[in-house]
């Protein structure tokens, strides 16, 4: 990125917030997803309802006190309801949740996510913290959104381990496995917005962010990204979006420039 007005993490946060429609219900994870949800509420989606895994429906998040976990009392502040973890996750199985918003350590061409093992699961190089509710969210929420930094080591042809199901092996393999609802809807990176081909279920470029190039996307992707004939571009983050974002995360605990 050449633009100096914002860093890559801030760009991802702003672009993620724009995806969230007003009046919908989003199941938000800690970190980037949470900050994007709150930004969306302050911008165009005041009636966006946030659900947290800890058991919270529609809390009011204090801008200066973004909770580092969604399983603690600050994430419950002035909620419309608190309920058990099992029951809040079951709301997705019933179909109440429009968006499941996840971060990801590793994603593949079919949108499968890995947050369990780097390397061989039986002999891992790194044991990651695990799924938490991500597997449930990706199996049950209507539309899955994933926000991440775009790097070759993160965008791999095949994840080492499918913690969180995207379209599995592509085609109708997700439905065949019994996941008849939901599916990964969009991947938001610092380079652009990405969707999935309706037939092959392979990841495809939807829009580039201002300044990003197809070459850059291909360089930073470990599999063959589907590229449309005509390249569309997103709108640059506005001063207003950046101002609010920085109010939410003054110390850049979640929106610091990503070191590679």
């Amino acid at each position, binding site marked *: 990125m050449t633009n100096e007005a914002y860093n890559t993490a801030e760009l991802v946060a702003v672009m993620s917030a724009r995806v969230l429609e007003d009046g919908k219900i989003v199941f938000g994870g800690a970190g980037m997803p949470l900050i994007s949800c709150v930004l969306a509420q302050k911008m165009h989606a005041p009636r966006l309802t946030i659900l947290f*895994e*800890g058991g919270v429906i529609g809390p009011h998040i204090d801008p200066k006190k973004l909770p580092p976990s969604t399983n603690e009392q600050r994430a419950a502040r002035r909620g419309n309801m608190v309920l*058990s973890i099992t029951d809040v996750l079951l709301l997705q199985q019933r179909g109440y949740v429009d968006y499941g918003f996840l971060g990801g350590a590793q994603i593949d061409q079919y949108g499968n996510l890995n947050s369990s093992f780097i390397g061989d699961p039986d002999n891992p190089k790194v044991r990651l913290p695990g799924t938490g509710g991500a597997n449930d969210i990706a199996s049950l929420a209507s539309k899955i959104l994933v926000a991440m930094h775009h790097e070759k080591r993160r965008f791999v042809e095949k994840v080492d381990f499918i913690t969180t199901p995207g379209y599995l092996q592509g085609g109708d393999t*997700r439905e065949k496995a019994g996941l008849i609802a939901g599916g990964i809807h969009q991947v938001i990176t610092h380079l652009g917005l990405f969707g999935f081909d309706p037939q092959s279920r392979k990841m495809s470029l939807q829009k580039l962010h201002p300044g990003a190039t197809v070459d850059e996307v291909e360089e930073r992707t470990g599999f063959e990204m589907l590229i449309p004939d005509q390249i569309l571009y997103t709108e640059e983050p506005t001063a207003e979006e950046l101002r609010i974002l920085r109010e939410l995360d003054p110390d850049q605990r979640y929106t610091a420039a990503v070191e590679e």
Partner: protein
Amino acid sequence: MVRPYAELREVIEKKDRGLREKVMSLTEAINLIQDGDHVAAGGCHYSRTPMAAIWEIIRQKKKDLVYSRSISSTEGDLLLVSEATKHVITSWFSPGVTWGVSRAMRHYTQEKLAEYEEWSHMSLGLRYRAGAMGIPFIPTRSMLGSDLLPRLKDIKEMTCPFTGEKLALIPALNPEVAILHTQRCDPYGNVQSEGLPFMDEDIAGAADTVIVTTERIISNDQVRRQPDQTSIPFFKVDAVVEVPYGCLPHECYAAYEPDFSHMDYYVKLMMGKGPDGVKEYLDKYVYAPDSWEDFLAMLNFKDVLRATTDGRSVYND
């Protein structure tokens, strides 16, 4: 392994379920745990963690426990490094998103010194729920297609006899012991928790033996004034221990937020030196103090004061 129904019934039938006082010391309560037991902890991550109970488990040198919890934070490190457990069942295991991946967890799992059995958050919740309902499984539409499912011994897939849809059958989990912390409990064991319920109610219903630590012991008369505030009935509970600040350095809803400075101190030690850092912490904060109160007294008073002021501010509106 799903336990046979006849065995589960026999265990509950033997329990003294009459209305009786069961207030005891932390030591007496933790004595109810046997080496090799499956111990399930209430709360989630660094919230409403039964830390005093875990602290005493480690001091009593329990061995070969199976430890399960919704999400495991720093208490999981302590149980691994103290060798109280070599088998943790949870859905996510590290101090917290902003603190990075636990080096202790990585060391013990990557070196195969311990097993981290990973279930999705909801399916672990359904395991406790099936256990609490007295049924061997609950069907779900989650976990399907992932690489998590084939690594788990007890889970099965089936085609729904009503709809023909594919389902995952989540097996019941009935732990030998549940350890829970709450804000309010009467001497008989009627629990009236506030705020985030997490999985505590299902865990209490699923376990053979239930140990409750509580910020305060309230009168049964107070419980009976608002029976709709009771979340766990007395006859499920076997021990009641009054332990103010029983979750520190973790939080207790509307009572106190985490002692973040102590958490930062621990994480720095653990991430810096790995298991040796945790051993250092155990020696200083778990083995050395004479009592839980003495451990609390080692914390910075001003930090605890701030945590308390912030925690109870939930009711300031």
